[in-house]
């Protein structure tokens, strides 16, 4: 219980007694704060755990307890704990003390709370709306409140104000939201002096579908299908994080074979995405040969997914407590055989890229995200590891990964090349993980239906290290197993700010390369 020693000071200074702390599921520590000490506790936990605000969200409990609840979540990898700080906010003119001036990673969460619930983060430096665009959303519409009337149309035509950078020779280049390639929509506002970028402001939210609202009122089997659709390149990661949360609430004992099979699928997802990004990085610097090579490997991976699960993007395979389909002996040997072949192809691809002077010249020292900046912004996952932050949920909260050997892939330079290198080594690492899982674990023991369990009411945090980084789901179920509130945090939500800082000082033609080296999700961010 050594985490208690660490947070003792924080709690004592803020009058938190033992009655206000509870420990759940072995990895969650929940602290009940008040409006007076919420901010101080958050600052304290942020500082001692060196954790960004991993989640900060509200929920509407006016129907039951007559209040809104605001929850901040911090990660303490060292103690394998998640710290939750809960605070009740009264329902009349709701407000709370903003954390943003002290912790940058709270900024976007607080803007989200403001627009979704109408809870005011007092003293927040930037109160513009985030995903609900003024052009279409009426003033005073708070969609995540339970009494929100969906379908109400806006007549307002407000406009978004971009930050203005002024000075001699400074001009703005607006790009998007419609881009020339087949990618998601996002608006980028560059302020440039000649070619070098002075400021980049990203305006997202064009793919806001109201996923969290859609989740509410769904039963668990329905909700997991929605989770798969949050972002199309991380279907399995999202469904895994969601199922993890529900399994924690219901106390399901998930068989090891299921966990292993899920880990295999998660790694397969990582592999196809990483190789696609490697190809994407190559094409963004006009190096088309390796990019075509990577496309071939990606296609092999997708065909493999199809063969194993019936879905190229690993949809509809994960279930609460189990997986829908076991991997037969034949499929396992096919998986093994394909991976060997893919690794051989991948080695050629890697050599082509790393041996090309012209390619290395483009990737090296482009789009540097310094470690300190990454820490301050709360960047997670692959981008964090490329900037020298050793953060990987597969190491921090291992679960089944405890049983296998793999390295945390870390780079120190934080440039596009570092992010490429992390991908290159993680691709091979994932193949190694899958091989070990196939060797060690008895997949035959997996029963497709999975664990027997009964639905309980409660709330829990589910997480998975998707290929971009930590995918977090906070799920609250009622007695009938209906989702009351589901907060989703895709790694992209943390990392978009990282991109804005990484491009500073780079020239405009290098932006696509920087962007691709992060490859963040629009729908995952916009929800």
């Amino acid at each position, binding site marked *: 219980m050594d985490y208690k020693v660490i947070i003792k000071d924080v709690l004592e200074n803020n009058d938190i007694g033992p009655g206000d702390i509870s420990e759940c599921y072995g990895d969650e520590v929940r602290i009940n704060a008040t409006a007076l000490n919420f901010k101080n506790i958050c600052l304290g936990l942020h500082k001692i755990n060196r954790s960004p605000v991993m989640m900060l969200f509200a929920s509407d409990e006016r129907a039951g307890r007559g209040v809104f609840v605001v929850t901040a979540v911090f990660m303490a990898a060292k103690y394998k704990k998640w710290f939750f700080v809960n605070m009740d906010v009264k329902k009349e003119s709701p407000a709370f003390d903003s954390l943003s001036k002290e912790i940058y990673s709270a900024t976007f969460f607080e803007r989200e709370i403001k627009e979704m619930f109408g809870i005011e983060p007092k003293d927040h430096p930037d109160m513009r709306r985030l995903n609900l665009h003024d052009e279409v959303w009426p003033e005073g519409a708070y969609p995540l409140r339970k009494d929100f009337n969906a379908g109400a149309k806006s007549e307002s035509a407000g406009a978004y104000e971009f930050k203005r950078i002024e000075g001699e020779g400074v001009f703005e280049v607006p790009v998007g939201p419609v881009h*020339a390639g087949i990618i998601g929509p996002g608006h980028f506002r560059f302020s440039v002096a000649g070619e070098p970028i002075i400021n980049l402001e990203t305006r997202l939210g064009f793919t806001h579908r109201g996923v969290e609202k859609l989740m509410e009122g769904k039963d668990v089997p329905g909700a997991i299908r929605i989770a798969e659709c949050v972002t199309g390149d991380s279907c399995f990661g999202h469904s895994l994080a969601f199922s993890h949360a529900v399994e924690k609430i219901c106390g399901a004992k998930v068989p090891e074979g299921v966990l292993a099979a899920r880990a295999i699928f998660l790694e397969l997802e990582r592999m196809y995405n990483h190789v696609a990004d490697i190809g994407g990085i190559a094409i963004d610097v006009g190096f088309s040969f390796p990019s075509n090579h990577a496309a071939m490997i990606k296609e092999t991976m997708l065909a493999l997914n199809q063969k194993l699960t019936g879905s190229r993007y690993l949809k509809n395979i994960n279930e609460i407590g189990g997986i829908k389909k076991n991997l037969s002996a034949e499929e396992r040997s096919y998986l093994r055989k394909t991976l060997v072949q893919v690794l051989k192809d991948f080695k050629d691809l890697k050599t082509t890229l790393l041996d090309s002077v012209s390619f290395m010249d483009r990737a090296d020292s482009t789009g540097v995200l310094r470690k300190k900046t990454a820490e301050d912004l709360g960047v997670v996952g692959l981008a964090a590891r490329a900037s020298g932050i050793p953060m990987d949920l597969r190491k921090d909260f291992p679960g089944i990964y405890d049983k296998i050997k793999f390295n945390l892939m870390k780079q120190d330079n934080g440039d596009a090349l570092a992010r490429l290198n992390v991908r290159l080594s993680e691709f091979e690492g994932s193949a190694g993980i899958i091989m070990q899982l196939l060797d060690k674990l008895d997949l035959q023991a997996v029963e497709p239906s999975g664990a027997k369990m009964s639905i309980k009411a409660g709330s829990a945090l589910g997480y998975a290290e998707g290929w971009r980084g930590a995918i977090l789901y906070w799920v609250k179920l009622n007695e009938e197993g209906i989702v009351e509130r589901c907060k989703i945090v895709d790694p992209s939500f943390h990392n978009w700010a990282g991109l804005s800082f990484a491009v500073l000082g780079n020239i*405009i033609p290098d932006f696509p390369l920087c962007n691709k080296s992060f490859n963040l999700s629009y729908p995952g961010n916009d929800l």
Partner: protein
Amino acid sequence: MKILIIIIQVAVLTAIAPLISGIIRKIKNNIRMRRGTSVFQPYYNLAKLFAKNEVVSENASWIFRVTPFVVIASAIFALSLVPLVNAGNNVNYAGDILLIMFTLMLGRFFLALSGLDTGSAFGGMGSSREMFISSLVEPAMMISIFVVAANASSTNQYLIAARGHVSFSAIVAGIALLMVTIAETSRIPVDNQETHLELTMIHEAMVLEYSGRSLALIELASHIKQIVFFTILANVIFPIGAGLAVYVVKILMISAMIGVIEISIAKMRLFRAVDFLTFSLVLSMAALVISAAGL
């Protein structure tokens, strides 16, 4: 008779100019293990564009409308001056190589203006980059051409071509001019014709506002400009052999070279193009020294 020959030359070369682009694309696709589109795809594109309506920005002035015609006219005029078959056809008063260069620059000047004309951020970016590149291209281009001109003691291409053999200095100048050609035809490593990334474009960004017929004219002009450069390389720098068959072989060889170069390297950083083009300038100067030494 001379007029007739020139008209036939322009007609034939204009007709095959898009084919050269199609062939280069085919070569690249084959190396990339792709089936790729037919070599006639550039024709289909042009046919499609000619059949389409145009969208013209409200802010566009007469420059924007006039530019496609200036560009295509300058390209065709340049085409009428290059020596296609180097034996015979000695048109003494035409075929001055400096005239070709300046004619092509006129087209570029108008393109850069029209990029600025509509006030779009991309057009301005494209124009500024195009002028930046062309300021580096022009000296190298001029000097490498002066090398062969000095060898023949004339800037008339027909006289240069009539020499019928290649001196060492011309080979060095040819390499410099090949690098210039890569930049002039917006190819990797300087520019990338295939890219969809508007932020990295140079030539494409400049013409981003064009559509329909105007775009077709500009694209056709680019194909023609490409064949002009290839022809200069083939017949002025390396005037060996006579007849159409030799010419076709030489053009195909240049196309293959360009295709392979495009596949083998990544595009350079924008400001790294300076190094590339400076190297070309140094080569051309070296060629001039070699030429002065009589080799």
